């Protein structure tokens, strides 16, 4: 492959790729996300390949191993194109029947299609299944259509057209303005306007400027970023390059987990391919813009996802948060202006440039625009990753998409944001998904991990679990965090075991105030949030265990 040297050449290549593809050719897209992978999709893939070979169908049927489709509960999942027949919980033993009956015989295998556990209704196609039907997908929609190792697949689906538009039709200032107008808010937890952060980094003095993809995603029950990044690394990379152009950065970093080999492999391939195609490196697409990316891995501690700790880690130091009051967008990696956004934030950028801020702001609520990836877990029928517009109510998320609470149990609470998030009771189920609305209630969206808790949940025990986790995952540098969490966890263990004392709740609140105010970084500052929200709504459970 020779380098692409202009916007026109990129479009020519895209046309060329599409002309060689027959949209009516049968293609089996097999999910290879974390869930399906764990459920043994490898064996399904080999069985299908073998069967295709046996039936001499190698030229008639393609197999595409893709990123996460989202419906982890029902894995291994596959979708047969062009009909979009969706089979679930597929085993290697099903391979022969799938090829002979569905691929050759054009007949649907009844036992492999989706059956609604509540109504008994069946659905053959992906777009008829409530789990998918009730979503609005702009980011994860690529996943079944793209082999993450194939840049051509991404190009065939319109990939890198946003970058081309930014480089050749827009000035860096215009790109920045568009992102600001779109009111893209950071998806990593804070919900801070990305455009404003970009602007700060752009205007801050510094010989070099850096941009970072935070792909650390350490909170329990959150696996949205991995779904997007593993499944479609080019989408994130395209967003990053556009951001670098707007900010005036020529060096980017991808910071991600050391324990996800599949993600690493896909990122490495994506970077190599993008460089080969001239989408990365010197003189990108012949525009004169230079930009390189380096990949860094964490050292296996939760706090390394905190932005300043992450930057220390990139510098080769301990991942300890920095005690500085100057923002990292002004002074970050090696004291240079550094703009950090998480995976999902970057993934939103190409479509904002492609379709414009006006389109983007038509989705969502007044102050939270676009869609949000949410991972559903806990006591919910349909575990998985979903994408919905902001403004979708929690009820729609849990019942219409999530299928409700299993085993006929009642819903007790929704917990958002993992170990630094909060829980709200069932009565708030009609609250729309919105950064500010949920933060007001004490359950900020965080990165988007939604944990459903049924009536049997012990809220004291759940809070103890989170604090116990943080007691070890804090870096241990500052006293309010290290010692405060240690003592709060101890008191909660006592209460949980029935050894609580009069005054324990008040002491917990006192420590929480100090940890929340005096800690060095966001981990310590928000470590007591699950405690405070559960004291706000479920105080009686604490009291009952003390008396």
């Amino acid at each position, binding site marked *: 492959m020779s380098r692409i040297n202009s916007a026109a050449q990129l479009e020519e290549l895209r046309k060329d790729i599409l002309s060689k593809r027959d949209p009516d050719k049968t293609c089996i897209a097999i999910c290879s996300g974390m869930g399906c992978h764990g459920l043994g999709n490898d064996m399904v893939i080999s069985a299908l390949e073998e069967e295709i070979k046996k039936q001499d169908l190698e030229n008639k049927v393609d197999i595409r191993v893709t990123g996460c489709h989202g419906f982890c509960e029902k894995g291994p999942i596959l979708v047969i194109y062009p009909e979009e027949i969706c089979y679930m919980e597929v085993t290697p033993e099903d391979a022969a029947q799938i090829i002979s009956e569905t691929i050759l015989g054009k007949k649907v295998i009844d036992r492999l299609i989706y059956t609604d556990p509540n109504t008994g209704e069946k659905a053959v196609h992906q777009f008829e299944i409530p789990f998918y039907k009730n979503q609005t997908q702009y980011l994860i929609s690529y996943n079944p259509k793209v082999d993450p190792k194939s840049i051509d697949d991404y190009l065939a689906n319109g990939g890198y057209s946003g970058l081309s538009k930014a480089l050749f039709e827009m000035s860096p200032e215009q790109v920045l303005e568009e992102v600001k107008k779109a009111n893209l808010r950071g998806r990593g937890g804070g919900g801070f306007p990305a455009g404003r952060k970009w602007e700060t980094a752009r205007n801050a003095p510094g010989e070099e400027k850096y941009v970072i993809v935070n792909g650390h995603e350490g909170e329990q029950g959150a696996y949205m970023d991995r779904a997007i990044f593993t499944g479609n690394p080019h989408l994130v990379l395209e967003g990053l390059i556009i951001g670098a152009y707007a900010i005036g950065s020529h060096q980017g970093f991808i910071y991600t987990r050391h324990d996800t080999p599949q993600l690493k492999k896909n990122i490495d391939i994506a970077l190599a391919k993008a460089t080969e195609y001239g989408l990365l490196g010197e003189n990108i697409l012949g525009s004169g813009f230079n930009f390189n990316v380096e990949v860094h891995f964490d050292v296996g*501690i939760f*706090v390394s996802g905190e932005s300043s700790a992450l930057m220390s880690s990139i510098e080769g130091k*301990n991942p300890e948060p920095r*005690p*500085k*009051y*100057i923002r990292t967008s002004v002074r970050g990696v090696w004291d240079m202006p550094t703009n950090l956004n998480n995976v999902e934030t970057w993934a939103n950028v190409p479509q904002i440039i492609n379709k414009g801020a006006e389109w983007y702001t038509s989705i969502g609520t007044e102050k939270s625009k676009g869609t949000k990836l949410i991972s559903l877990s806990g006591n919910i029928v349909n575990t998985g990753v979903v994408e919905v517009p902001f403004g979708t109510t929690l009820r729609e998320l849990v019942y219409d998409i999530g299928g409700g609470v299993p085993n006929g149990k009642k819903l007790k609470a929704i917990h958002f944001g993992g170990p630094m998030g909060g829980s709200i009771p069932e009565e708030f189920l009609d609250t729309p998904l919105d950064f500010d609305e949920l933060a007001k209630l004490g359950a900020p969206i965080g990165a988007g991990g939604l944990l459903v808790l049924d009536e049997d949940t012990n809220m004291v025990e759940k809070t103890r679990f989170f604090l116990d986790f*943080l*007691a*070890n*995952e*804090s*870096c*241990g*540098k*500052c*006293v*309010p965090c*290290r*010692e*405060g*969490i*240690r*003592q709060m966890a*101890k008191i909660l263990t006592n209460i949980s075991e029935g050894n609580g004392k009069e005054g324990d709740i008040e002491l917990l609140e*006192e*420590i929480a*105030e*100090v940890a929340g*105010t*005096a*800690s*060095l970084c966001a981990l310590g500052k928000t470590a007591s949030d699950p405690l405070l929200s559960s004291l706000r709504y479920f105080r009686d459970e604490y009291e009952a265990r003390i008396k």
Partner: protein
Amino acid sequence: MKEILLQIDGKQVKATEGMTVLEAAQSVDIFIPTLCHHEKLEPYGGCRLCIVEVEVNGWTKLVVSCVYPVEENIIVRTRSEKVDRMRKMILELLLAHAPNSLQLQAFAKEYGADKDRFEKEASFCIHCGLCVRYCAEVKKKHAIGFVNSGARREISFIPEIAAKECNDCKECFELCPTSYLQAVFVLTKALAFP
């Protein structure tokens, strides 16, 4: 260097750009309690005891003075009901580990901190990092470091380096705010059971 005017406890203070609030206060003999601060070392911001109230354009916030840079016209209050509450709790949390530290006891008296508030876990170390940072920044030997994270964090001499360097130095021992013997013990342990 640009001169910066600020107010600390009602006093007009002249500082220069790049100074911290703690340094500005110390320059006019206003006392702010610290445990992890040392003039020869980079600001660390670990103990959080030097927390103060800062008013910027009418907004009051609590900041840690050893790392907060001076800014024009800010108003600093080194004591307030809330500041004292923070310091009291920080001291109580630390006294669970080092109840006999004279320095902690003196501060505890000032802030009404109860040394028995939390169950004792006498590890002596309060993780101020003075020994670790002194060895790294001043001596440039890195003979002692932190190991582990969170509640399990502790100081540890690196036997290979300590065996060569520490006998003739031991300058870090005197920096320890809780006990000289603590460092001696940790060093001996590292050398005897590497």
